[in-house]
């Protein structure tokens, strides 16, 4: 598999949210606005990239039976770094995302990629895989956040383009499921065509 294919698969063919349906908890929880979705996506991208790189580097020094605990420690470290840096330099976003940042630790994409990909492949492939998957996740969350913000608050990235209240349900949790369902349906349509 070429590195380009390896990178691009995270967007469409194996998009974590739309195809693998992984990491749906943050995907549904924080995407009430496009900015929140993007911030959450970027935070996950960083963790995914760093943990994939580190795991592929240390994989030969980790005994088989303790690999999962070791990977979790690596992931948790990067998540805490993101949490602290965000609290210090982007307090407004940090407050919005709240609990979902520490919860990246248990996001199945991150451990999934570490276990299924980075612990078997080379450093280069793992890095590209982390980047592709992370960007795919960011893309999915930003898209979902945009759709919900446009329909729910009649604004995009905080910029109000129309007066009024929008369809309230799209900001609430049920709207997250509805929007995600339609996006997955569209995604499948395009993939077949």
């Amino acid at each position: 598999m070429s590195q380009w294919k390896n990178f691009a698969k995270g967007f469409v063919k194996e998009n974590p949210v739309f195809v693998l349906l992984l990491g749906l908890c943050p995907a549904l929880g924080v995407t009430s606005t496009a900015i929140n979705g993007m911030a959450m996506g970027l935070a996950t991208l960083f963790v995914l990239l760093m943990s994939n790189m580190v795991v592929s580097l240390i994989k030969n020094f980790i005994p088989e039976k303790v690999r999962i605990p070791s990977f979790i420690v690596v992931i948790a470290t990067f998540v805490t770094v993101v949490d602290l840096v965000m609290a210090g330099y982007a307090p407004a976003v940090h407050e919005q995302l709240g609990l979902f940042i520490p919860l990246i630790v248990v996001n199945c994409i991150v451990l999934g990629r570490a276990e299924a990909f980075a612990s078997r492949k080379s450093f280069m492939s793992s890095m590209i895989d982390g980047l592709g998957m992370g960007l795919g996740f960011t893309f999915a969350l930003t898209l979902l956040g945009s759709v919900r913000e446009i329909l729910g608050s009649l604004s995009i990235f905080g910029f109000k383009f129309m007066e009024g209240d929008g369809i309230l349900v799209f900001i609430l949790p049920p709207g997250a499921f509805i929007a995600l369902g339609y996006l997955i349906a569209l995604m499948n349509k395009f993939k077949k065509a």
Partner: protein
Amino acid sequence: MAKKESTFINMVATLFIVTLVASTALAYVYELTKEPIEAAKLAKKLQAIDAVVPEYDNQPVAEMFKVAAGEGLDSLEFYPAKKGGEVIGTAVRSYTNTGYNGLVVLMVGVLPDGTIKDIQVVEHKETPGLGTKMESPKFKDQFKDIDPSQVVLKVKKDGGDIDAITAATISSRAFSEATQLAVDTYKKGGDK
């Protein structure tokens, strides 16, 4: 290179090294971000204070004092705003646990004569699009520049003078309650 054997010593040593490196790295990042985090928290507090009291020339955060709010309640933080040594307003950090999702924290600006200047919502978990409208001027301005002894700080459903937000009576009630608590506590000890 072959994978390491899963012997007891190997496993213990590996986990020890991994956690040691991780905690060292985290300690370093923690030290690095400690100051920005403190600064961000302070800036947020100051922003809320600035919005609810007249222009001041002292350090309200440094001169903060606490006043007991009553039995079973946490004491409230008072931030006095002074100009030329004269108190020109007090920002009262008030709260209630009766919001739709629990805690609602307000910063209520009270002038020396007891009138409310303005109110800022500091913290809440209300429903987006419904309860969050308590931050909108349409609702909040009902509390602006009023004399709390003339206005009953309750929603109209409870016999007060406040128009509740449509579909968010509980949030409106919580907002009024927290404001009332600030006013009551201010009467007890705001002029200190």
